[in-house]
């Protein structure tokens, strides 16, 4: 985003006389330097993945230049995209992530609205508490969560462990606190008079939320959606713990468990799977980013 903003301002800014513009030019040069550095740093791994995914296993294990493809092939892509197993992982991931995003929004938005606007006893403490739960790492939580679900499964007889849908219960523990926190921030930035105007206009709390707050805080909503989707899509530890059968796996676990057999790494397919797996978040970013920025600037003008 910051790259975008500077790109737009950059070319039109011609050198002017005076120390202010000289300072500015230098600041711009430095920012370009670090941005290029940063871009290279973060782009090299995916480029390496792309190169490797286009190679056959023989070429990967041959001691040739790893940064060049001598005999490009799409066989890795073909094999993965025709493999029922891989498509199953993809499907599981998609369902889990989409449902988790929906569940997260259904919980976070009303929660954030209540915490930001309905000043009830303990609301401030509760808001901080919501955020604190996010700070507890999942590596600490997975064992107690597992025990908890096991007890529930024994008690109710509902199969939860080793089922992909258990992730629908688990992931929101990661996404809801953070999304609620983001939304509290966005809702708090909406002027108080706006909901007062709505209340006087005859809107109920729910109508104020649906017809004023959600449209006005749409950039925040999109940020939260992107976050929730990314977290669910990339989550590794929980699905590794809670699912054990191949047909219940989501993409990150599926790729690493089925494409690494013993000490044999099927690098070509691993890289292909990872690239294909990175595609959906990338597409969502690309689509929502424009809207996100447009929304940001629209919200910036005074209510």
């Amino acid at each position: 985003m910051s790259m975008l903003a500077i790109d737009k301002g950059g070319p039109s800014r011609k050198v002017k006389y005076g120390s202010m513009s000289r300072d500015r030019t230098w600041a711009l040069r430095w920012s370009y330097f670090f941005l290029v550095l940063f871009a290279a740093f973060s782009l090299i791994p995916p480029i390496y993945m792309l190169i490797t995914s286009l190679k056959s296993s023989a070429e990967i294990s041959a001691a040739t230049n790893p940064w060049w493809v001598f005999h490009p092939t799409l066989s890795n892509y073909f094999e993965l995209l025709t493999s029922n197993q891989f498509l199953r992982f993809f499907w599981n991931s998609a369902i889990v992530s989409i449902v988790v995003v929906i569940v997260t929004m259904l919980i976070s938005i009303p929660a954030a609205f209540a915490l930001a606007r309905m000043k009830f006893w303990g609301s401030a403490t509760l808001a901080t508490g919501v955020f604190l739960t996010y700070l507890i790492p999942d590596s600490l939580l997975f064992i107690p969560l597992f025990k908890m679900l096991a007890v529930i499964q024994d008690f109710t007889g509902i199969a939860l462990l080793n089922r992909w849908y258990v992730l629908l219960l688990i992931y929101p523990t990661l996404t809801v606190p953070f999304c609620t926190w983001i939304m509290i921030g966005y809702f708090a930035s909406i002027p108080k008079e706006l909901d007062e105007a709505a209340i006087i206009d005859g809107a109920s709390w729910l109508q104020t939320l649906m017809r004023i707050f959600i449209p006005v805080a749409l950039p925040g909503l999109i940020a939260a959606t992107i976050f929730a989707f990314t977290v669910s899509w990339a989550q590794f530890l929980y699905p590794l713990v809670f699912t054990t059968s191949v047909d219940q796996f989501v993409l990150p676990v599926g790729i690493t468990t089925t494409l690494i057999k013993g000490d044999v790494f099927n690098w070509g397919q691993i890289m292909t799977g990872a690239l294909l797996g990175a595609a959906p978040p990338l597409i969502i970013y690309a689509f929502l980013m424009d809207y996100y920025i447009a929304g940001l600037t629209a919200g910036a003008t005074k209510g």
Partner: protein
Amino acid sequence: MADVALRKVVKRYDDVEAVRGIDLDISDHEFIVLVGPSGCGKSTTLRMIAGLEDITDGDIMIGGDVVNDVPPKDRDIAMVFQNYALYPHMTVAENMSFGLRLKHYPKAEIKARVTEAARLLDITDLIDRKPKQLSGGQRQRVAMGRAIVRNPKVFLFDEPLSNLDAKLRVQMRIEIKKVHQKVRTTTVYVTHDQVEAMTLADRVVVMNKGRIEQIGTPNELYHKPATRFVAGFIGSPAMNFIPCRLEDAGGKLNIRLTDRISFPLPPARAARYNVLPRTEKLLLGIRPEHLTESHAHLEPGVETFDTVLDVTEPMGMETLVYFGLEGTPVCGRVDPNAGAKDGAPMRLAVDLNNMHLLNEATGAVL
């Protein structure tokens, strides 16, 4: 449309008493302005009428019904906020019709009302724009339009012009007055600007420290202030307060300002103030327009004195002159051709027919 009544209304936040027992009767069609310095409780009072703040004690009645526990949407009021509070994602028309749409009015009636209000406020061309495409003045018109289409019992304005520049403020002030003359809805208007209060109000309520200092028409407040606070708050430049005492001089009652300056009071004033103890510490309240240059032919009750001016401020149609009377700064208004100069001596005339006498300790106008 309806009358509004406040009975011993109190608002307390924890330890702070923001509003300390207010009684106010606002009749139907009336334009009432609550005015006072910041923190005087005027906005809180307005918000209590709106139902946006709970009241700690007392009763608020709209149209004869006690509305203490009635939610804002059922009070049939409309409010215009200082920062407009337009819904940024809706067009002007959608903003204005939001309340009506929530109440499921027929589409045709909504359209008719919005069109009528837009015509009244001269914003017909802006009807499809979003708030961010409007200037401050246009936004404020839309905010008023949103209030008008609802056709409520009471309009509430919370410092609606404070965000506008000075020129636009004067223009919108006139617009608001015109709109009120047309729709005649009972209006409660909050401002800290006494000029706005004077120009708009049928009656002005001057508030200070959570209490009502005085209620009256603009002229009453100007000419017959009840307290030092009102006397000093209404009018610009503010009224001068000069320490003084009464003394008897040869069967007449004099008012002594300094060792040098003492005036005989006009007969009507002398009769009124004669009962006061001569030892009491008093303040002479005199407005700058009653401190002018001296003429050859002075009316009865107008006395002259000589002073040396500190500073003069030429305003065009008048010149403000500042001087000191034993350390008390005093302001007068003289004719621009009277020859007032910084640091120059000048003979001034004080019109004692328009004087006020205040008790220095209590601030009461005697």
